[in-house]
């Protein structure tokens, strides 16, 4: 990941994911402002609909990629000893993958029940 996301490629991925995350965040906030689901049935129907579900999964993947590049840049600026840097970066990467799987599981399971 770090090799693939280094330099110019990371710069481009950061901007591409920023645009999608920004637009979808706007949609989420507007949806919550003007047609917030009143109960579980409405919430499930909305987030479980095919289009919103796929858009949410793509949103989560984009947030995690964006977070990886951003957090990596911040940590590289402040953590200098290479062993500490590598350890923390590894933990961040693992936790991002774990959180992605956790969120995806919740979103996919709700379509099955």
């Amino acid at each position, binding site marked *: 990941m770090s090799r693939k996301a280094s330099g110019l490629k990371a710069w481009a991925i950061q*901007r591409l994911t*920023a*645009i999608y995350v*920004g637009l979808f*965040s*706007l949609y989420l*906030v507007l949806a*919550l*402002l003007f047609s*917030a689901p009143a*109960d*579980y*049935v409405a*919430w*499930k129907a909305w*987030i479980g609909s095919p289009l919103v579900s796929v858009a949410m999964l793509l949103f989560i993947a984009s*947030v995690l990629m964006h*977070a990886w590049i*951003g*957090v990596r840049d*911040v940590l590289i600026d402040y953590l200098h000893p290479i062993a500490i840097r590598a350890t923390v970066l590894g933990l961040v990467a693992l*936790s991002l993958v774990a*959180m992605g799987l*956790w*969120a995806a*599981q*919740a*979103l996919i*399971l*709700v379509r099955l029940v």
Partner: protein
Amino acid sequence: MTTTSQRPVFLNLLKIKLPIAGFMSIVHRATGMFMFLALPILIYLLDQSLSGPAGFEAAHETLHGFFGVVFVFLIMWSLAHHLLAGIRYLLIDVDMGVEKEIAGKTALWVVVAGPILGLLLTGGVL
């Protein structure tokens, strides 16, 4: 190189006069880190709210408690600041708003709009 080594080093963060764009940039980083650290809480609430009617009610209650409201405000402020600062960076990428005076103005707008939008959105979504 000799001149470089003889420069005085002054890094007292409390006394350095940081331009507003620099302050906005630090807050952009801080809000990004905060939202990253908040991700497990957000995903926990998503998971809980989708687990069934009881989970939905529990998540709803958490978000409307004192800490829930503060959390939502911090998230909305962070999101607003990070998004606006991000749009500003993208515009600068395409050479819009690069001049010092304009860049300072837009940075100030971002810093001021963040908490205001944060408050409005928190009131709106809760």
